[in-house]
């Protein structure tokens, strides 16, 4: 790990079966590679109130296992050991934080997907803010790349309104919406 960057010992990778999983695992592997940090991929099956928490949601489990297995496949390419942790919980965010605490993770890495609908925006949802507010360790968010077709050309600074001149996204900035509380 380079100067100024912390050396993680154990990273919890939050996977949701979406397009950001690969980003998260790749980032985790790149961080872990130089230090030999341990990686734990966590996937939480959200159990709604029509099921008991202990119900075996076998159909979901195959897909959920595939999420962890694919993460292990990526880690194998880096020759890094990654263990999978499959959970059932009522709330993804709290289960994720609690599990990260239990396994002693010093960093949680999450993915932030980009939604193309309505002109395109990052779908922060509830999980990331919860993790930011409650995780006792560092939190890293890997955002999904914005498709090139959705990037609007930035006009010269003198023609821009004052509120966006610094290059921040229009409206409420991402920094305003999600706030991390890493150590």
């Amino acid at each position, binding site marked *: 790990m380079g100067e100024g960057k912390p050396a993680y010992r154990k990273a919890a990778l939050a996977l949701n079966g979406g397009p950001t999983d690969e980003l998260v695992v790749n980032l985790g592997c790149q961080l872990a590679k130089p230090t030999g940090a341990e990686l734990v991929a966590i996937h*939480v099956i959200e159990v709604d109130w029509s099921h008991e*928490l202990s119900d075996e949601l076998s159909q979901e489990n195959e897909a959920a*296992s595939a999420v962890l297995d*694919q993460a*292990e496949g990526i880690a194998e390419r880096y020759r890094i050991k990654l263990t999978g942790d*499959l959970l059932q*919980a009522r709330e993804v965010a709290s289960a994720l934080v*609690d599990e990260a605490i239990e396994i002693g993770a010093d960093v949680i890495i999450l993915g932030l997907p980009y939604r193309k609908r309505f002109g395109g925006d990052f779908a922060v949802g509830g999980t990331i803010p919860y993790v930011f507010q409650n995780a006792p360790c560092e939190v890293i968010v890997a955002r999904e790349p914005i498709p090139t077709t959705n990037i609007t050309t930035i006009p010269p600074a003198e023609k821009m309104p004052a509120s966006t001149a610094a290059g921040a996204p229009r409206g409420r900035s991402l920094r305003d919406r999600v706030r991390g509380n890493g150590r």
Partner: protein
Amino acid sequence: MTDPERPGSMKPWLHGRKPGDRRMRVDRPHAQYFRYSGPGTLIAREAASMPRTPTGRLIESMRHILFGRRLSNYEEIDERLSKKKALAIFSSDAISSSAYATEEILRVLVVAGAGALLLSMPIAIAIALLLAVVSTSYRQIGYVYPSGGGAYAVARANLPGIFALIAAGSLLVDYIMTVAVSTTSAVEQVISAVPDLNDWRVLIGVIAVLLIMVGNMRGLRESGNIFAIPTYLFVFSALLMIVIGIAKVLNGEGTPPAGVAASTTDLWNVAGMVLVLRAFAGGSVALTGTEAIANGVPAFKPPEPRNAAATLTAMAILLAVLFIGITFVADSFGIVAIDLPVPKTVISQVASIAFGGNSVVFYLFQAFTALILFLAANTSYNAFPRLGAILARDGFMPRQFSFRGDRLAFTSGIVVLSVVAIALIVIFGGDTHALIPLYSVGVFISFSISQSGMVRHWLRERGGRWRTKLLINGFGMVLTAVVAVVVFVAKAPTSLLIALIIPLLVLMMLFIHRQYSASAAHLKVRDDIVIAPPHREERVIVPVPGITRAVVQAINVGRSIAPDVRAVLISDEPEESAQIRERWERQIPDVPLVIVESPYRALVGPMIAYLDVLNQTWPENKEQAVTFVVIPEYVARNWWERVLYNQSANRLRAALIGRPHTVVVNVPYRREDDDMVSEPSSS
């Protein structure tokens, strides 16, 4: 802790930091052995391939030490080679032949007297011209077949199938001979430097082949820098040797052989046409390995064909310079191969003159020469198994040749190559000169066939400047065919072996192909039909020795297969069988027991005869029933116990193999700990 939402559930659940936050870990029992890659698709992990028994684990750990850990398909190296690296890796076979090609010419000419040795230079130049023609022809193959244009591939694409098989047979022989000749020559280089090792030459050769075999079984790759270094070390040191040698000749230090003939005509008179042709045939061994670059085009960096063609030209120039240079210096100093009291190769004598016989440089040069020759032997370990795998995929070799071992190597091909090469080294006493006649015949046959394939290709495909290309390949075809005949005749009678081996290999491949084609036609399922459920009636026969837990388990398995279940007891003790019947009818009343008295004490014969009778009594207007013979077996705990059990079952199973309308089912009964065994159900 148990789940309060589901009383009685033993799944542990975990509290979070906040009240009400609960989560549960889900077991993934598959995760140890498999990984999901998609819906309904699993990938086996390394653990799934690991043996489960202590003996198996012991053998596995020994294999691990010898051959290394298992590699997955995803770990295959797909490295593209630069021209410099490819030149070293693909050319080691061709360039290393300069270490013994000159010697083969001189060994023939020396028979006609010292004066005839001067003919070695014109012969070497003629061979260099032949090399130019062959390499120019192979350049074109690289452009047309960028996916690898071995003689087999070219012939298969353009010529009738038999030519492809002849090419394949020739190449297989060529690869085997490369291992044998390169290894023995390498050992001779070592002996030339350390004569005391002469008595151990065969043993050293065998050990060297075994080491190369083990290295390749471990998945040795040719792409590493380690393989490029020996080639360049040899090339640069050999060039230095030639320059020093020429300088010494120019300095007047050369000692030409006594009795030098005055003119070329005189030389021809001295040597005679046959001898010259034999010398040419001997020296043509220099061309072996020329095709390696055309075979390996896909391994080059893009643009692959252009880089391969440039590398091929560089290789041909280097080989020609080394070959002619070594021949010139040897010629100038009147060097001939020495066999007694200990062998001294021609190249070692040239090195001795150039560097000084006891100098460190001389010993280093001998080491470099031996290294490149061992490396040349190693190139066949890439080519032979790969060709074997291609032939196996095409149905001309046993399928085992296409299976890759734990280290991604084609294990069967590697083992066969090593065994045959070792046999040749032992049979020919580790003598390179004795092996050479078997070598170049196959090479020129494959050259000739691949050039013929290219001629056919240009005639069919045409395209830009096709006439020039046709002319180049046509000339190459004629020339290599003539040389193949010359080499074959000149090296007779040893070369006659090749005339026997290649047709035998072709016949073997045709036979294998016919067998596979016949079985494939027999097993083929039409793809336009829907498979209906089975309609033949089924019955179950359970051979029993009495009433045991294994028998009860087999009877229960039989019941699950078909309702018609009967037990058959072959007995030579009528009293005992009566007791068994009494007990059987009491304990297993719904399964009839047939007792076959066997006064001649045979077991298998009466059982087979009973099955025959059952078949014969089946109504003729109905399709014969399928008979499931369910054999109870007792599984021994230890390997040494196995000899005590199941001998009758083994004999019966062997007798039933291939019997029509019969399916043999083994039902193993595993001995568990006594407290875990429950009595069979009384129902």
